[in-house]
């Protein structure tokens, strides 16, 4: 069991214009923690993981596993196990051989290998498939074999690179819960890469959000949702995404259409008297009201997505034509072309970001 530390680690791809795929990453993953690296494609999340695995060079800074500096160590000396997106199972080996391969290379006695493979197979419900080749397995079973191959190693760190993205939606939700439960049970430090923010939120003890190679925020799922550090994180975490609009700033507050959203004094001060502010309101922070309600925002309904329990109303503000999404009760969806009125549930739920830098102001 070990903690993992990135000390200002960077990966620079040379070329006509060098790209800093991972830029001065400073991050500590505690012993036994499940940390999710999340970000859009090209954000450097996979590269960061591969740097830890030893499959990608570390051009600046260093990476430690436990007390050991692994920056220039080959993958096999780092005591890690990795689950790949494609699973990377050896097609000519049986499930048992696939799982025991790393142990065999370490010259662990056959009897012990067999026992450890059997234990892992038991844990993953793979016992009856041990003699099959990967191509005789379903996608979900292959995924479990890939997990099993990592587990039998008993490594100090698990690395997982989008291990669920090749599964269908239903199986993905199921496997997501299984992996999280397995990790809690084994207590092994795990770093998990995904582009799916739902996976990130449901699985990780903490979630690190990356964009353009730069760590934006690393926090618990709840904290990320409630206090995103900047507009990027605000827009990335949460589904559907937070409504983010840059609006004029007045002495009373932020002007959205013909409504003034109140801004706490502290926040007002830190905005430093700029003329604009980026306002973030989650779809679930908006509430439908009757049209008599003062200070309500009128929305033309352009699209209604019914999810069963909820419905998502996509609309435009009556005056400025700003796009907003509202999560409302699924039992009374408005019709297309209707005009509905909304208010913010609680002024506390309004997020404010600097219009220039995108950083959170309060």
């Amino acid at each position: 069991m070990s903690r993992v530390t990135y000390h200002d680690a960077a990966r620079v791809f040379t070329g006509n214009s060098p790209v800093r795929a991972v830029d001065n990453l400073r991050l500590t993953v505690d012993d036994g923690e499940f940390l999710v690296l999340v970000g859009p494609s090209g954000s450097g999340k996979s590269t960061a993981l591969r740097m830890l695995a030893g499959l990608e060079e570390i051009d600046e800074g260093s990476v430690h596993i436990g007390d050991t500096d692994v920056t220039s160590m080959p993958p096999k000396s780092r005591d890690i196990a990795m689950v790949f997106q494609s699973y990377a199972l050896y097609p000519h080996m049986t499930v048992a051989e696939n799982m025991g391969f790393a142990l065999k290379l370490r010259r662990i006695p056959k009897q012990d290998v067999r026992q450890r493979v059997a234990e892992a197979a038991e844990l993953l419900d793979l016992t009856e498939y041990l003699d099959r080749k990967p191509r005789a397995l379903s996608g979900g079973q292959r995924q479990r074999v890939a997990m099993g191959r990592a587990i039998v190693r008993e490594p100090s760190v698990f690395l997982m690179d989008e291990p669920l993205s090749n599964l269908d939606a239903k199986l993905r939700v199921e496997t997501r819960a299984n992996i999280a439960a397995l990790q809690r049970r084994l207590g092994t430090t795990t770093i998990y890469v995904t582009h799916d923010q739902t996976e990130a939120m449901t699985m990780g003890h903490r979630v690190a959000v990356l964009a353009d190679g730069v760590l934006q925020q690393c926090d618990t799922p709840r904290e990320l949702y409630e206090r995103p550090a900047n507009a990027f994180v605000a827009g990335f975490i949460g589904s559907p995404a937070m409504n983010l609009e840059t609006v004029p700033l007045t002495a009373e507050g932020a002007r959205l259409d013909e409504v003034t959203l109140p801004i706490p004094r502290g926040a007002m001060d830190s905005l430093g008297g700029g003329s604009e502010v980026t306002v973030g309101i989650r779809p679930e922070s908006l509430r439908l009201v009757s049209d008599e309600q003062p200070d309500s925002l009128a929305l033309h309904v352009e699209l209604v997505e019914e999810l069963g329990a909820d419905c998502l109303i996509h609309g435009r503000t009556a005056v400025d034509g700003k796009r907003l999404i509202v999560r409302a009760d699924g039992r009374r969806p408005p019709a297309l072309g209707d005009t509905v009125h909304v208010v913010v549930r609680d002024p506390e739920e309004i997020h404010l970001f600097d219009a220039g830098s995108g950083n959170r102001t309060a």
Partner: protein
Amino acid sequence: MNVEAPDQQVSPPRERPGSESAAADSATQRNRPRRREGPAWVFLSPWLLGAAVLTLTPMLVSLYLSFTQYDLFTAPEWVGLDNYVHMFTSDPRYWRSALNTLIYVLVAVPLQLAVALAVALALNSMGRGKGFYRSAFYAPSLLGASMSIALVWRALFNDGGTVDDMLSTFGIDMGGWVNQPGWALLVVALLTIWQFGAPMVIFLAGLQQVPHELYEAAEVDGAGRVRRFLSVTLPMLSPVLFFNLVLQTIQAFQVFTPAFTVSGGRGGPADSTLFYTLYLYDRGFTASHMGYASAMAWVLLVVIGIVTALLFRSSRSWVFYNDKG
């Protein structure tokens, strides 16, 4: 030329029933009137004509001739199994040629494939200049089929040839290679091995199909270079290796041009390069025993068939076909 009635060719194409199930689809095809096959036969006819006239007929004729004595000038005389019996029981040169061919196959094919794979591996790990070297290494295969390159080869390895000269500067005096029974076969094999371009290109294509993640998984699992080659590259390449092995083996059994040229057409010295086809040619066109030569050809066909079948059977245990995902 085989011309169909015009009304059969201009009949409008029926729309394919896209929404129907596959079973229903094939059922409609089965019930479709026969005349719709007309255009297919028209398009197939050039090939069918060629296959029938240029391949099938000569084969059947040679099968007949193999039971006869025939010298090209007088009518073939039926002799039953005499040719076959003679071949197997009282023709030491036949057995010599068969043995030479077997040795040649066992030496040239594995070595050629090994060289092709080694060069493909080197090229695959190369960055810039890959295209140039790929073409450069492929070139001998294009030249190799010609007589001229075999003549050059003979000159290189002859007594007083370039190789001999070069070695004598180091004090090694072989006195030529192609005129020594112990070495001549090797020189011919070397010429074949040198023409590793075709299998190399196929290996290279195979190598580029191996998923990179497999190598990374093996690296994380603790496999070194050699282990990665044995446990990832070779198994993943096994279908390509098998394809090359079958093709090259079939070709090697039929080796002719290099042996004919290097040995001056006689399979010398001392019958050391008397390959099967060379002896076959000698029996047929020098000694005018066409019946005997035909019988030899049929035995070779059967042997190649058996060897290929054995290779296919063995492939079940060492060739791994991967599917997607």
